């Protein structure tokens, strides 16, 4: 059984069909990269899976359990959506850190709020908070920011901010971590530090879906590569199959163009 199964997702904005029929599945510990030209619907796909957009049709299954069904009569309640979102983590292109909190507070905020729903929260508040802080510190250490924990986002470089946002997403133990072009808002000399963190996570078997334009990075880190064009999955295979041996005209044109730049 796949950890994540996305079936026939469709999404239109007004008359524009952005996702025409997107399906893929992902095994535990797999890393999948999504490539595709600008406007092909990559961001929209991640947003639909993370319930930031309401897909028009299709299904999303986590560990075989259906968490979204576009054909269902009843819309999901806010509570159900919230529970579903906790299966996943999303790292944004523009970080979206909370400016009024330190790096550490950015990482602990959501877990602390979530802990309030635990039945033993009242009795064990102190232990729970201590545990959350420990975990957050460990995560920040893992992304190389032990000495920056108490800095505010405005005091951090773009690369450091993005690493905090990765730690923040990991703090809730998502089953799948999604990245939407995590390096494209960064100066070229800072992309390396983010890619390194992601490679590290891949080695520790974190299940990830990465939208990226860094082909060589995708080749190195991914078990699978999906190529999207005009709202459909054109190709889905190993890096070698998609990047080197593709027979598809669209894929080859896309790769050709990237090589020229």
């Amino acid at each position: 059984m796949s950890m994540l199964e996305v079936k026939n997702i469709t999404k239109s904005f007004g008359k524009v069909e952005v996702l025409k029929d997107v399906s893929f599945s992902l095994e535990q510990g797999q890393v999948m990269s999504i490539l595709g030209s600008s406007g092909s619907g990559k961001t929209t796909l991640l947003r639909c899976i993370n319930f930031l957009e309401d897909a028009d049709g299709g299904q999303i299954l986590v560990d075989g359990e259906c968490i979204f069904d576009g054909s269902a009569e009843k819309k999901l309640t806010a509570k159900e959506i919230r529970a579903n979102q906790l299966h996943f983590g999303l790292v944004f292109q523009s970080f979206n850190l909370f400016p009024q909190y330190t790096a550490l507070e950015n990482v602990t905020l959501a877990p602390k709020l979530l802990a309030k729903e635990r039945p033993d929260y009242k009795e064990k508040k102190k232990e729970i908070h201590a545990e959350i802080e420990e975990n957050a510190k460990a995560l920040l250490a893992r992304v190389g920011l032990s000495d920056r924990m108490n800095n505010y986002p405005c005091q951090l470089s773009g690369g450091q901010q993005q690493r905090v946002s990765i730690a923040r997403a990991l703090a809730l133990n998502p089953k799948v971590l999604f990245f939407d072009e995590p390096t494209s808002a960064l100066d070229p000399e800072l992309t390396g530090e983010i890619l390194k963190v992601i490679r590290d996570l891949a080695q520790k078997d974190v299940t990830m879906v990465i939208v990226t334009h860094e082909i060589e990075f995708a080749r190195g880190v991914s078990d699978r590569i999906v190529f999207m064009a005009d709202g459909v999955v054109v190709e889905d295979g190993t890096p070698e199959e998609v990047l080197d041996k593709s027979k598809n005209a669209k894929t080859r044109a896309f790769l050709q163009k990237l090589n020229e730049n």
Partner: protein
Amino acid sequence: MDFWNVTLSLLAGLENTCLIFALTLVLALPLGLIISFGSMAKFKPLAYLIRTFVWIIRGVPLMLQIIILFYVPGFFLGQPIFTRFSSVVAAFVINYACYFSEIYRGGIESIPKGQYEAGQVLGMTKTQVFFKIVLMQVVKRILAPMSNEVITLVKDTALARTIMIVELIQAAQNFAGYGLMWPLFYTAVFYLAFVGILTLLFAYLEKKLDYYRW
């Protein structure tokens, strides 16, 4: 009338000035937030209704609103239902809540969508996103326009004398009956001190929130 007697009378008037000021702030600050939510409601008829209300309140002179609130209910019911003081406070609260609501709305709408989305994908509820993420940022953004409004409020309290409430200006005006004009000019000292304190307070708040930037 010597200087101290005048000062004491003016201080008595200042008490009403301060009371109107404080009550207006305490009540209009939260009410303004509720009105701003209404004006941003997804249910459009409600949003338009609230915006029309805000337009009327901001479009009619406060002095007129005070008069209407005090005299009109009494006119229809045969007897006044509010005391002079509560009519004045009610008029001020409604008027300032409407001004505040527009400042809040501007502040709330200026927070990038990504802040809400980041909170949402971390499993926070709408309420948590608003109070834990958005509100603090809104406060920082609206501090300057709010300080303007609050300072204007200090001086607007003088409108309470329209329906015979003895606030600072009216207390001074009472001396004019005895041919004393200088107490009226003397009130400026009180206003200046009041506004001076507020200015310092806002400067302090601004500094407190200066620990982060966007």
